[in-house]
Structures are given as C-alpha cells and as structure tokens.
C-alpha cells in the first residue's frame, strides 16, 4: 500500500485506470439493467414494482460500503498518517450520502404501493436515516472548520464514532421484528431469492461499486488539485 501513498503516483494510476473503470461500469449497468427490466419476471405479489428493488438494494449496499470505506480511511489516517487517506475519506462522504438518499427515496417510492405508507419507523429504516444524518454531520464538519489539518483530525473521529451504526443497520432486521424484510441475498444458509432475479441484482451491485470507484477516484483527483491550488495561493500571498 505504501507505494500508493505518493499523490503523484496515485494520480498517474488513477488517470490510467479511470477510462477502463468507466467502460466496465457502463457495460455492467447495461447487462444488469437488461436483466432487471427485461428478463427478470414480475413478482407474483408485488407485480412490476419489484423492479424498484434493483435500484434500491445496491444503493443501500453502497451507502453502507462507502461509510465503511470512510471509516477505514479515517483509521488509516490516524494510524499511518497516510497523506491520501483523509482525501479518500473526505471525497467519499458526498457520494455515500447520495447513495443513502437514493436508497431512502426508492424505498419510500416502493413502500407507498406495498406497505401503504411513504415511511414507517421500523429499525432498518430508522438506522438508515441515521446513516444519512451521520453523512451530513461528517460533511458539515469539513465545512465548519476552516483550518484543513484540524478539520481532518476532527472528521476522522466523527467517521469512526459513527461507524457503530453500520452493524446496527446490518443486523437491525434480525434483532427487531421489522416491516422491512430480513436479509435474503447475503445469508449464511444461501440466498432465498430465485436466480432469475438474483443475477441482475448482483451484476447491478457490482456496477454500483464500480460507479462508486470511478466517482471516488475523480473526486479524490479534484480534491488533490484543490489542495495544490490552495498551497500555491498561500505561497503566492507569502511572496507578495
């Protein structure tokens, strides 16, 4: 990992990898969406609305994954003083917040015809909403503290403290009796979802992950550029 610590080398690799990642993302989205919208059968109870799940489930996975990435990057920043770790955590947060919002919004759209309500306060929905608040709080910290070094130190703690919510989200459907259905794709005793629906879901999950990777690399790239610009401005104002 240490050899990627150098921002210049990171930028070189990111610039080469990005076009490839974008191409893969588009191909996987095309395959996944074809499977989701064309070949997957409508559910015998939910009808065509089940297709919302193909947007909803990967978005929720990614919302949790991105927070985990943020917390890991923050831990790396504390332990190894890795110069890119703070950049990685900072630029992941808005992307994760959007995924989280997407999961909440599509879940709400699905909930209205299925449960008869836009929103219910069960454990899974509430903990997901809390995740959104944690993203907002994390972003707000970066906005509120002007000195970047100090903002980074405070933001690391916020990310790590909030990580406690991730296992709560994952197991909320097991610990409480929720209206939200229990885990059905990733289970110890095998998936309970038919293959015709599962494969588009998994392909879309992969596509979302690659989309995140692409957006994250681009966002990190512009964050590095913003920091360079800042340093140049400080240097110039020192000369004048």
């Amino acid at each position, binding site marked *: 990992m240490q050899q990627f610590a150098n921002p210049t080398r990171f930028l070189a690799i990111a610039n080469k990898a990005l076009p490839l990642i974008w191409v893969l993302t588009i191909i996987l989205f095309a395959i996944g969406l074809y499977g989701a919208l064309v070949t997957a059968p409508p559910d015998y109870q939910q009808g065509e609305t089940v297709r919302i799940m193909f947007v909803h489930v990967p978005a929720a996975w990614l919302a949790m994954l991105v927070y985990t990435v943020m917390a890991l990057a923050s831990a790396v920043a504390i332990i190894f003083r890795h110069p890119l770790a703070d950049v990685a955590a900072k630029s992941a947060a808005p992307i994760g917040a959007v995924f989280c919002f997407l999961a909440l919004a599509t879940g709400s759209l699905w909930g209205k015809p299925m449960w008869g309500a836009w929103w219910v306060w069960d454990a899974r929905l*509430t*903990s997901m909403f*809390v995740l959104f*608040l*944690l993203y*907002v*709080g994390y972003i*707000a*910290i970066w906005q*509120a*503290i002007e000195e970047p070094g*100090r903002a980074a*130190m*405070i933001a690391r*703690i*916020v990310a*790590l*403290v*909030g990580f*406690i*919510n991730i296992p*709560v989200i994952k197991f909320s459907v097991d610990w409480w009796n929720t209206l939200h259905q229990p885990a059905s794709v990733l289970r110890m005793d095998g998936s309970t979802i038919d293959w015709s629906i599962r494969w588009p879901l998994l392909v879309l999950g992969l596509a979302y992950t690659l989309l995140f990777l692409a957006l994250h690399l681009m966002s990190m790239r512009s964050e590095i550029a913003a920091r360079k610009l800042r340093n140049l401005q400080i240097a110039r104002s020192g000369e004048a």
Partner: protein
Amino acid sequence: MTLLAALLRRDLILAARQGGGAGTALGFFLAVLVLLPIGIGPDQATLQRLAPGILWITLLLSVLLSADRIFQQDFEDGSLEVMAMAPPSLELVALTKAVAHWLSTSLPLSIAAPFLGILLNLRTEVIWPLALAMILGSFALSLLASIGASLTLNIRRGGLLISILVLPLYVPILVFGMSATTGNPEMINPSLLILAAITLASFVLAPIAAAAALRAYLK
C-alpha cells in the same frame, strides 16, 4: 486521583455558582413541558400516551443545550491547556468533566423528570421504570454529549453542529428508554440491561474520542 477529584469538585462548584447548571436546565425542561400540552391539546388520554416520549425528548434536548458548557469555557480561558499538561491523561480529564456534567445537569433532570411527568398525567406504574431508565441513560447522554462538545470546541455557532453529530448517537438510548416505559412489563428488565450496557460502553469509549478531539484543538 486527587487531581481528578479536585477537578470534579471545581466543575461542580462552577456549575452551581455560575448558573447555567441544573437550575437553568430544569427551567428549560419546565418551559418545554408547558408548551407541549398547548401544542398537542389538553386531552388527558393523549397526553398520558405521549408522556414518556415527551419526557425523554425534553431530557435529550436539555442535555444537548448544556453540552457546550463541558469544555468551552475552560478552552477559552486556557485552563484546558493546563489540564492537558497535568499528570492525569486527557482521557481521564474528559471523563471527569463528563461525570461533572452528568452530576450537575443530566442526573438532577432525570430524577426530576418522572415526577414532572405528573403534569402530563403520566401513568403512576411507569414512574419507577422511567426514573431508572433515565438515570441509567442520562450518564450515557452526558458521555456522548462530551464527544460532541469536544468535536465542536472552537467552532462558532457550534450548537447546531453538536445536535447533528450527537442526536444520531442518542437514538439507541431513546429506543431502549422508551421500550422500558411503554410496551409490556416484560420488556422493562431487558431494556434496562441494554441501557446499562450502552452506558458502560460509552463510559469506556467516549473519553477516548473526546480526548482525541481535544488534542486536535489544543495543538
């Protein structure tokens, strides 16, 4: 240990003599309790059903509003730097100050709240579970508030930011605090045990997070 005891005494005396301690928090608590029945309507049955929730949320808000007192003044007049250089580790200092906040604000409120519930027609049989749950939970509330206070130590208008950062962490306390007081009587014991577990976990973890944040500001 004697240094920490002295710090605890100092903070308690400051809270008692400066105002802004238990008295003001209690005043805020009462003001909210007066406003809510006006907003909801004076129907006795409705108030009885909502009473535990109203009391819990008012408690959370009162603790949050007083949270910035935990470190701010000491940071501004420089005494926090002296504490950071003193022999006890900053983690223990943060813990002591959170305990002082609990003893001066959260604990008196959580003892008074169930009895103020009488104003809301609170059912008498839930007064004891509610009091126990609040006393257990209020310590966790103070500890988590100390994390928020340290994170927003030197931010102008940090009060709103504290709420965004800390309220998500308060959700579990509210959930189990409520399940100890509404719901069926079988849930009282497990809920109290989980509340105790949350309090113990934040007893260990909150001072570490708070001290790390304080170090970032003291640099």
